[in-house]
């Protein structure tokens, strides 16, 4: 079903194009008939005919029920037309009447004239209202969009202890406002695109002119313009279309629900991509180091921020290597484990019928299964899954002698470590790669682990995000950027924008204020 959205049949999108004229005619009845024919008489299409002026000039307003704000259409358009033009003598020419209506009668801020059927259908399908006047081949198109939306809430996937509680919503207009509220700079740019042949969704590329490197914007625009699909239901579609390498297990463009994160990224010389209909905003270019950064690092004092960030690097290490190291040590280099520990491991493994790699992979898969089940179920039952899975299955498996207790500790520690990473998508990558390391460890022990580690490094040094190497600022190294990488230096020292995005204006912002 999803794949059908990407179908590119050029003929099928415009199959009934020949049936009606594309330009509007002068006859009101013909125009309305054509519109009805194009949309095939939908039941939610509202055509309200009325007469205006002392000469009873015929006209009509057209909209789709449910997409418009009734208060605006009734109170600002219909009422004004009916009361203010009741017995007024209208100008003789039809064009002049239309102008007068646009200028004096309609109290809606966004009004423009259109003269094709496509203008009308596009606008009313996205919540506009069209005003037809008999005797002229033009219409007024008014923006009366207004439908039920979710209000701004705390982002569910990225909650913080300290920091703003606002999250993006599905409405792109609201999201743009949220960004504007953070960056009140005249150089903040929003470039709008329409994506989806059929869905015609609004997509906005946001960046701060003068900070972002122009080549990044140019390249992003080129890639965005290449998008050709029927519908983009979520920004993940955009991400996958424009990413540098689809063969990589790593996400090259990060997404977030937090306006503060997006505005921080914009001010670091990145660009953001907003899509209508999803609260997830993409930020690009993204690098590996970004996946360890959380806004909270900056809100807390730098000691806390630095320690937490180091903790995350440790967590990433555990999430990727711990089961593999366990397998390698137990099955290839048991001599490396201190003898007391080795004895207790051997004692607990007594009676376990499987080699440690089978044990580790099956427990790892069980863990993933529990996580997946917990996500799909309603929240209240999700917790039960955690208890049933974690406690009952883990305990029972040990009791039954299928796995060793140490293995349960290893797997649980790995899972907890992977959830400690601030970016959910990179945590998934790490957990995926973890299985590769387990297999490498079972084939070649520590040697296999280090070889796969080198392979992984080869992969990420060749990987790019919108042309920026994924390993910056480690390599190519920008030593100054290291102040905000593994450590989070005091804010007064982080006065320059990261070098790796090659920002045009690298001048310190906070220092500027200090000097004045």
């Amino acid at each position, binding site marked *: 079903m999803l794949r059908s959205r990407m179908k590119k049949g050029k003929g099928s999108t415009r199959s009934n194009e020949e049936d009606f004229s594309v330009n509007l005619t002068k006859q009101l009845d013909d125009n309305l008939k054509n519109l009805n024919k194009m949309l095939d008489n939908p039941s939610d299409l509202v055509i309200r005919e009325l007469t205006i002026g002392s000469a009873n000039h015929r006209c009509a307003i057209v909209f789709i029920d449910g997409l418009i704000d009734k208060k605006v259409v009734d109170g600002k358009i219909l009422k004004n037309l009916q009361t203010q033009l009741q017995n007024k003598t209208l100008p003789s020419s039809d064009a002049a009447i239309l102008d007068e209506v646009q200028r004096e009668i309609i109290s809606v801020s966004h009004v423009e004239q259109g003269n094709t059927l496509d203008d009308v259908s596009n606008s009313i399908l996205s919540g506009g209202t069209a005003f037809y006047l008999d005797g002229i081949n033009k219409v007024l198109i008014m923006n009366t969009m207004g439908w039920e939306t979710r209000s701004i809430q705390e982002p569910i996937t990225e909650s913080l202890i300290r920091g703003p509680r606002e999250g993006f919503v599905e409405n792109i207009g609201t999201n743009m406002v949220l960004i504007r509220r953070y960056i009140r700079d005249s150089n903040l740019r929003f470039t709008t695109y329409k994506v989806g042949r059929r869905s015609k969704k609004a997509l906005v590329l946001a960046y701060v002119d003068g900070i972002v490197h122009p080549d990044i914007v140019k390249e992003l625009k080129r890639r965005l313009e290449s998008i050709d699909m029927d519908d983009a239901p979520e920004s993940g579609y955009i991400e996958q279309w424009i990413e*540098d390498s689809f063969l990589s297990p790593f996400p090259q463009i990060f997404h977030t629900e937090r306006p503060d994160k997006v505005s921080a990224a914009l001010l670091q010389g990145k660009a953001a991509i907003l899509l209508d209909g999803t609260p997830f905003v993409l930020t690009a270019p993204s690098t590996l180091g970004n996946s360890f950064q959380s806004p909270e690092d900056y809100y807390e004092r730098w000691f806390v921020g630095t320690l937490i960030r180091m903790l995350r690097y440790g967590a990433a290490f555990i999430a990727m290597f711990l089961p593999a190291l366990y397998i390698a040590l137990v099955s290839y280099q048991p001599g490396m484990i201190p003898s007391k520990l080795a004895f207790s491991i051997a004692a607990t493994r007594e009676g376990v019928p499987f080699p440690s790699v089978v044990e580790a992979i099956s427990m790892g898969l069980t863990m993933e299964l529990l996580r997946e089940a917990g996500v799909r179920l309603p929240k209240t039952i999700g917790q039960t899954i955690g208890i049933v899975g974690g406690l009952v299955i883990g305990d029972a498996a040990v009791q039954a002698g299928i796995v060793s207790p140490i293995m349960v500790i290893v797997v649980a520690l790995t899972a907890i470590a992977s959830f400690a990473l601030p970016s959910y998508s990179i945590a998934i990558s790490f957990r995926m790669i973890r299985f590769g390391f387990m297999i490498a460890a079972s084939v*070649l022990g520590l040697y296999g682990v280090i*070889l796969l580690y080198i392979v992984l490094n*080869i992969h990420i*040094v*060749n990987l*790019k995000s919108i042309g920026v*190497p994924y390993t910056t600022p480690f390599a190519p*190294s920008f030593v100054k950027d290291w102040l905000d990488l593994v450590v989070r230096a005091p804010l007064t020292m982080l006065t320059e924008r990261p070098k790796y995005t090659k920002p045009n204006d690298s001048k310190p912002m906070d220092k500027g204020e200090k000097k004045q």
Partner: protein
Amino acid sequence: MKDFEYGDEQIGEKELRFAIPSIVIGVGVLSLPRVIAQETNGVDGWVSILLGGGLAMFMTWIVATLAARFPKTTFVDYASLIVSKPIAIILTLLISIQFLLFTSYEVRSIASVSKLYLFDRTPIEFIALSFFLVVIYGVSGSRAGLFRLNLLFLPIILFIALVVSIFTLGWFEMNNLAPFFQTSFDGYRSATKFSFLSFLGFGILLFYVALVEQPKAVPKRTAVAMILPVFTYLLIYVACIGVFADSAAGNMIYPTVELAKEVEIPGEFFERFESIFFVIWIMAIFNTTALSFDVTVLAIRSVLKKMSKLAIIFTLSPIVYLVAMYPQNFKDISLLGKFITYYSVVFTVAVPILLLIIAKLRGVKGDV
């Protein structure tokens, strides 16, 4: 998505500065303390390491000066300017054979050491093949990526070398260092020779400097970069002698790995530190191997311009692997190592000096 070239694909002198220690630090340091200890008394070998290192720095400077004389010109092209084209092509091929053999040597050595310290039953062919496949994958990627790997791995390698030297301080005995300055002149001379030979690798500059946009500062900077391996070797050598004394160190096959065996990490989380040390050291050996294989490919490609990089890699790989598997025992491997060293002395020491002299005499210069 098509690749897009505004990212940092340029190779600068900074990358070369990291490439020098990366190619030098490899398997050589694992056995170096033995070789030096056999020739000298007490801790006297430090003089030889410093002398050998100084000589290596000087040679790095010579090689880089020669290459930097012809900015953005490949070795074949500038050698053609100095000594006619046919000779230049022959030289390039001979040098590429040197790096090819060196790649094989590293692959074989890593397999042997792994077998000694990590596995006893896994066949050496499989150990070598798995490592070599990783090298092939690395070289098939972008060259800038390879330099980035150097940048990523070098700090880890230096860190583990430091850990090994610091955490064995508990076993360090001043008595082992004595007697001081009792070595004969011949001993110093031959130890200096061995230490110099362990710093070979600057030959890569003959080819890599051509990739740098502004090579003016390269000779000085890369020569200074040589200090890093010299210092690392010195550290490990002194630690080995301090812990084992020269007589014992001279009888160990890989004294550096044996040194790592003595490491005791507080907290007793790991025993047998030498496995960890060697596993990390694989990164260093990978850097060396990948760079030398990459230079081989680069050199051959500068002659056979029509062949694609991947085609060259896949043609050379079986040869490298076969050569690596040819030696039957430890003695054969050392023999191969010795052969390569003397071969390199001819082509990355004698040849560059000659070329530089001829270039100076004939006044040949690249356009700046």
